[in-house]
């Protein structure tokens, strides 16, 4: 699967750009603040319908553009047996995503048409940041890997909103407890599905990333991941009914606190996973270098899992990642990339990248234009 043509209009600092990309490695090269990351962001929109830099689509419209401006990102995708065109069009209030001219009514319909694995300097948040950053990572991956996961996640989120509204309402305690029973019962099924997916996924990710880490970090310490779910750190049941029952039990136990706070305090929406290096929490004790290597190992592992889960080879989007690593790690990292995957990489130093990667096409980016 390849993106063979990209055209952009009125997106960030890009008034208009068009390019025919190579099936191998494509390099976006130019000085700082010229629009290289903006191009990757546009490609990411075609694959996920969203940005990796903001949740506010309107921020991507060119500053000082008229209020009726529409950003249009168009991509031609070639798969072995078919070819299709994805179009993302956004103005300040709306977004429309279509495939071959037909509007896709939910982003779920877009996901899975193409897959991407993205490396950005912002990834370090996943290792260093709050549980929310790791959950977003899990959910973004999960949704690309497995459509059912998206369904359960949406259902869970919807029930959670209703449950929280109920907790904030002025119902008397017995009536509320009675209603909560119902929502908890309903919530148990998506909660268990989310748990089972995350549990399996984290285990597979840990196995793949652990191996890769030893290669890039050239140390004997091992990288590991541990799911910290609403069931606790050590719960290992993989039986759906058991998990549902445990979930309901947890909800029952935290009910009085939930009612007191007007909010749901336990559940998959509070999950996290721990990244350890040599048994120590990487978030707290990892050096900058170790944290970077861990993150890169996670992303590289993701490539393998993506292939295994979806049967599709993903497109790689590498933003500035190379500048984050020292010479030795950089060469090693680049040597781990499969040059048969379609890759879009940005950098300010074209020669170094060309020396390390079989770059097929180079696009020089200057002031929002491709020269």
């Amino acid at each position, binding site marked *: 699967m390849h993106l063979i043509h990209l055209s952009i209009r009125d997106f960030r600092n890009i008034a208009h750009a068009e390019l025919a990309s190579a099936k191998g490695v494509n390099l976006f090269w130019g000085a700082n603040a010229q629009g290289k990351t903006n191009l990757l962001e546009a490609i990411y929109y075609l694959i996920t319908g969203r940005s990796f830099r903001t949740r506010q689509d309107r921020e991507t419209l060119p500053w000082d553009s008229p209020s009726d401006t529409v950003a249009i990102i168009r991509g031609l995708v070639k798969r072995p047996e078919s070819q299709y065109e994805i179009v993302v069009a956004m103005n300040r209030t709306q977004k429309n995503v279509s495939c071959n001219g037909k509007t896709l009514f939910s982003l779920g319909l877009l996901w899975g048409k193409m897959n991407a694995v993205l490396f950005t300097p912002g990834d370090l948040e996943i290792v260093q940041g709050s549980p929310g950053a790791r959950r977003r990572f899990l959910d973004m991956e999960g949704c690309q890997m497995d459509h059912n996961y998206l369904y359960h996640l949406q259902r869970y989120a919807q*029930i959670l909103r209703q449950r929280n*509204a109920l907790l904030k309402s002025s119902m008397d305690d017995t009536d509320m407890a009675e209603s909560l*029973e*119902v929502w908890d019962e*309903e919530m148990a099924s998506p909660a268990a599905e989310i748990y089972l997916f995350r549990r399996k996924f984290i285990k597979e990710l840990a196995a793949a990333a652990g191996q890769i880490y030893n290669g890039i970090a050239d140390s004997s310490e091992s990288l590991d991941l541990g799911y910290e779910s609403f069931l606790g750190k050590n719960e290992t049941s993989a039986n759906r009914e058991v998990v549902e029952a445990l979930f309901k039990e947890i909800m029952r136990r935290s009910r009085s606190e939930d009612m007191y706070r007007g909010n749901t305090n336990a559940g998959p929406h509070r999950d996290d996973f721990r990244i350890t290096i040599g048994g120590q929490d990487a978030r707290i004790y990892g050096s900058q270098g170790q944290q970077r290597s861990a993150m890169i190992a996670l992303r590289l592992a993701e490539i393998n899992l993506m292939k295994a889960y979806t049967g599709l080879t993903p497109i790689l989007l590498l933003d500035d990642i190379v500048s984050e690593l020292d010479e030795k790690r950089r060469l090693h990292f680049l040597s781990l990339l499969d040059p048969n995957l379609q890759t879009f990489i940005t950098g300010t130093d074209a020669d170094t990248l060309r020396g390390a990667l079989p770059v097929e096409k180079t696009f020089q980016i200057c002031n929002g234009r491709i020269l």
Partner: protein
Amino acid sequence: MLKRSPTFESLIAELNKLPGIGRKSAERIAYHFVKASREEVMSLASALKAVKDNIISCSTCFNLAEKDPCPICEDPSRDAAQILVVEDAMDIAAFERAGVYKGRYHVLQGRIVPLKGITPEHLRIRELVERVRGGAVKEVILATDPDVEGDATALYISRLLSPLGVEITRIGLGIPMGGSLEYTDSITLEKALEGRKRF
């Protein structure tokens, strides 16, 4: 230019409140009334008034009808041992069109939506429990929409009814996920009814 006329503007505003009528359509309909004959407009006005004067909800099943009890509750050929529970009266129309159901109905007049402040007390759930307590009912079929709120509503009702010893079933099979009964065709409804599951 009519645009500035307060009379005309208020008509547009009223039409704009109707389901499925946006500002543009509201303007188009308003122009239509301005140009239409007096008779045509008056006949619509009296039809609207008649709706409010004559249509009431049945005090047994809360279906919409011109008399109380409604024709379905009064029809001796309809099986009083079966009650099919729906969110609104519109859903009854769908089952009646399909002609596949021979029991009675119960209209909840909504579903449980905490986010909109709709709790069980706002619905005709207590009345349903009373009907079942009455004794003649053997099966309650829950046909709320198969989505998050519809499922929660069905679950809530089934918990209330299960101590009463009636059979409780849920239909959902064949109805598109997250779909609404109103837009479901007859064959699908028939399948759904056949495939109902014990709660």
